[in-house]
């Protein structure tokens, strides 16, 4: 199933080793440096602009049925961050090639780096809460590697998705001895109350020559400065409105104002009633894959290959030809649900590109 992409050819394929690490725990649980406390909550809610009194006043908290002040739910991860100093030490060690850690997470990250997938971006986060955290809770977290994907093409570049699961337990801060040993931390984690679970998904990737997500048009144009521009579309007075719409990031469909029939590609007259009168409607951008090709050859320097090109049937009923991104060519099937986003290829040319609904681009 794992395709070894051309751009990864200079690097080794660690698929087998990575597969062997799935399901493993990161080893010792981690003890949060601080118990849940008012000053850290205060900094957090100030950053968020969240003025709910339940986070600052025991009186308000009791009004809502809590014994005392609670922590904001999404603060979960903040309790287990190692902090600036420790992070810098880890970075220095990594830069010096003496990266700490022999746990499976470090091993996975090392293998992915070796595969050439040195860049990282967070793609998904899911948190499930057992109960609200209260002042005095001391958190312990165990991390499990849940999944490592096959290599995929994404808008950012070729890479693998790594999903980890973090299981959070809490113990009263008073139960934690000073300078606990790893065995004592493991015991605390066993005895702790399960309070939350977090799934975190990252993309480790090799940045593509055209590196940038759809949103970062400026970055994309910058990175594209070295490659020739895309061929110019043949713009006429009949279809100019469509390309102008695309520049405004709007997907337009021509509509006959006499009989209401929608048509695409743009034409001067209605194929149904021959009327020359028309206006446009804005498409939702949602559709399904009606047909497609994946171009491998000949390679035109202004495109990336393999190059999937789809005929997408919009939910309004007309069909449009566009590039498909964010789906591995082998995963393309007729009927695939897609949605459009716009890409600014250069100062003059913006076009809709379709990707999976709810998928990662």
């Amino acid at each position, binding site marked *: 199933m794992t395709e070894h992409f051309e751009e990864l050819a200079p690097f080794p394929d660690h698929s087998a080793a990575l597969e062997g690490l799935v399901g493993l725990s990161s080893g010792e649980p981690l003890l949060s440096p601080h118990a849940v406390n008012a000053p850290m909550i205060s900094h957090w809610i100030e950053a968020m602009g969240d003025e709910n009194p339940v986070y600052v006043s025991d009186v308000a908290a009791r009004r*809502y*049925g809590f014994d005392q002040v*609670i922590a*904001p739910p999404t*603060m979960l991860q903040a309790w287990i961050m190692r902090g600036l100093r420790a992070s810098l030490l880890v970075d220095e060690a990594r830069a010096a090639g003496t990266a700490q850690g022999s746990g499976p997470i470090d091993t996975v990250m090392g293998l992915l780096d070796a595969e050439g997938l040195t860049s990282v971006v967070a793609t998904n986060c899911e948190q*499930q809460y057992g109960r*609200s955290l209260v002042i005095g809770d001391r958190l312990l977290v165990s991390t499990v590697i849940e999944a490592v994907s096959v290599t995929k093409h994404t808008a950012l570049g070729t890479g693998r998705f790594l999903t980890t699961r973090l299981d959070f337990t809490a113990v009263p801060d008073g139960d934690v001895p000073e300078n606990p040993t790893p065995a004592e931390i493991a015991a605390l984690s066993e005895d702790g109350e399960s309070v939350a679970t977090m799934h975190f998904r990252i993309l480790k990737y090799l940045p593509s020559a055209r*590196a940038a997500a759809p949103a*970062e048009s400026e970055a994309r144009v910058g990175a594209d400065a070295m490659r020739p521009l895309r061929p110019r579309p043949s713009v006429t007075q009949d279809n100019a409105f469509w390309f102008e719409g695309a520049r405004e990031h709007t997907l337009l469909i021509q509509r006959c104002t006499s009989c209401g029939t929608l048509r695409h590609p743009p034409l001067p007259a209605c194929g149904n009633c021959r009327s020359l009168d028309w206006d446009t409607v804005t498409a939702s951008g949602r559709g399904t894959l009606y047909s497609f090709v994946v171009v491998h050859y000949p390679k035109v320097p202004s495109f990336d290959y393999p190059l999937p090109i789809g005929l997408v049937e919009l939910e309004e009923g007309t069909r449009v030809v566009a590039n498909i991104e964010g789906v591995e060519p082998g995963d393309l099937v007729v009927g695939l649900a897609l949605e459009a986003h716009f890409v600014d290829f250069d100062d003059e040319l913006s076009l809709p590109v379709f990707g999976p609904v709810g998928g990662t681009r």
Partner: protein
Amino acid sequence: MGEKKLSWSDVNIGDEAPVTSHKLTRTDLVKYAGASGDFNPMHHDEVAAQAAGQPSVFGHGMFSMGLLASALTDFVGVGNVTRYQVRFARQTWPDEVLSSKIVITGKREEGGQQLVDLSVTLSNGDGEDKLIGEATAAVPG
């Protein structure tokens, strides 16, 4: 246990939470880096971000997730969210106005709990989605 905001009998699929908006600033990112312990320089060091090919510093995904969570807890009441998941669809940039959109998509009783499902989105002024996700919250009886 939880703040009583929604009333089970009045909750309907399609109901929307009030929109909350926030204009992102570089100062927000500095404050959030300190509050969260996430000191990735892409979020506070303009020179480093540009050297990495980014147009500027950009927002922490978890900051956006937190902003949207505040809009969510304002709507369903604190202490009631049981599950909250997002996809980081696009980066956020300084000076963008980030607005929440929260819609009730389901209403069910499960394990003796009254639950609502919600779709949650954070987008900028141009309607570009930054976070797309879902949440489940208990509605205290």
